[in-house]
């Protein structure tokens, strides 16, 4: 008797979601699949010909209702290196300034047969709204103070690259936790992968009951530094809300800025991370931002591979059916 075998061999997890709206509803396995795929895409940007044909004939739209340089260019290069065609729409130059609704804008884009919408908006939930009305894939590139999944994924990727793991690491997120979509996506991603997360900032910038997300809270910077493997600094967005919530940038720097002396109290293999753009001399001194512990530019490099991975994965997901079911 011959033995019966099942072919093909055991299938690894496949990506089936049409959209990437946030990390909150992703499983640890799905996050690991994105990180693993990003690892495979890294080498493409080191080739003499930095392009693979996998998204040939697909159209990606960068639909940015809020200005962005780094994220938009990162998505644009990621799409181009996968051979997709990409269109950039900045709201200032679109019909939205003539009163068209977001959903109408999307319907018009879809009437021109686009495949992936990369959406940034100042209001939380807009990418989710668009995803419900669109048959094309939607990638959240930042919605209000809610989520910025690709930023958190590239942060996770960078931590894993530098520390070979995420689980069990002590990671302190420092700055304006209340208004940061980067912080929120990172908290979900890091805790799902088993890291110990501490958030730190002035009481006016740390939302009450944030402990419910599974993080520790401290208002003292020295406590956040002590024992941390990674310090993730957030930008003080002085052009926005914070103007009223911190007395002055000078005072913020004195209490929460990382300078050489504070860095000296950290673990000898600390990683300094920042989503950019850095306010030099506020949350980070130049010496630290440019120093040997900083991986800020690695984050930018890795962002490209992570966004290539996300574009690749969502482009292969089933399109029409289960649009509702995949809303998260």
């Amino acid at each position: 008797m011959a033995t019966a075998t099942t072919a093909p061999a055991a299938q690894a997890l496949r990506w089936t979601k049409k959209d990437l709206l946030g990390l909150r509803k992703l499983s640890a396995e799905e996050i690991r699949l994105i990180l693993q795929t990003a690892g495979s895409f890294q080498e493409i940007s080191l080739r003499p010909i930095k392009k693979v044909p996998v998204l040939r004939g697909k159209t990606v739209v960068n639909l940015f209702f809020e200005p962005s340089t780094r994220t938009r260019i990162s998505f644009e290069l990621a799409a181009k290196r996968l051979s997709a065609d990409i269109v950039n729409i900045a709201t200032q130059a679109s019909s939205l300034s003539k009163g068209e609704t977001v959903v109408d804008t999307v319907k018009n884009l879809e009437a021109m047969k686009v495949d992936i919408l990369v959406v940034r908006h100042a209001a939380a939930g807009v990418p989710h709204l668009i995803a419900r009305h669109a048959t094309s894939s939607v990638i959240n590139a930042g919605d209000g103070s809610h989520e910025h999944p690709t930023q958190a994924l590239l942060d996770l990727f960078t931590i894993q690259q530098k520390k070979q793991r995420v689980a069990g690491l002590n990671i302190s997120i420092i700055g304006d936790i209340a208004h940061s979509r980067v912080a929120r996506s990172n908290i979900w991603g890091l805790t799902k992968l088993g890291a110990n997360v501490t958030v730190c900032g002035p009481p006016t910038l740390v939302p009450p009951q944030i402990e419910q997300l599974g993080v520790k809270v401290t208002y003292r910077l020295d406590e956040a530094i002590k024992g941390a493997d990674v310090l993730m600094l957030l930008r003080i967005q002085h052009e926005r809300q914070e103007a009223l919530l911190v007395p002055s940038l000078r005072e913020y720097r004195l209490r929460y800025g990382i300078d050489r002396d504070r860095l000296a109290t950290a673990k000898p293999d600390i990683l300094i991370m920042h989503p950019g753009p850095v306010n030099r001399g506020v949350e980070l001194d130049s010496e630290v931002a440019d120093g040997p512990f900083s991986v800020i530019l690695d984050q930018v490099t890795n962002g490209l591979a992570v966004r290539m991975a996300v574009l690749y994965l969502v482009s292969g997901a089933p399109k029409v059916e289960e649009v509702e079911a995949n809303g998260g």
Partner: protein
Amino acid sequence: MTEPAALTYREKAKVMDADAIRRALVRIAHEILEHRKGPANVALIGMRTRGAILAQRLAKEIAAIDKHPVEVGVLDITLYRDDLSRIGPNPIVRATEILFDVTDQHLILVDDVLFTGRTIRAALNAIGDLGRPKSIQLAVLVDRGHRELPIRADYVGKNIPTNLREQIDVRLNELDEKEEVVITVPVEAAA
């Protein structure tokens, strides 16, 4: 390349055992050296997953015969497949690891089974994006026929005539804890 979802296969015949696989690789190593007149300027590119294992073994055989190390790279052709829009969720992409410059090299692509030729077509396109080799040849452990593209192997471990319903399973110690090549056929649903 055929992916009939969740069909159950049973073993029909074992066509190579561990000795046969080893002898085939030793012979191919000799053929490569004879054809290339020595190991200089030969580099092997193994195709994930089992082709990469076979390429490592071939390199070892060549080095043992001619006391000359041979470069080995690993190629993942997922991003160059022509059936991505037809097979459901996108397959997992694994890394391409070719740490040497392929330009002006005499490359030998190594795979376990040559079937339709579509994987090799994808590999040729992928290599074209990495540089301009002087030549590319193809070594396979098994050629099972049924080509859909004008592609042939330069070095063949064993020709195994098959019909389209059958499947060739190459099992290698490194991955499968077995060392054999078997033909399997689908178990009829009614049975």
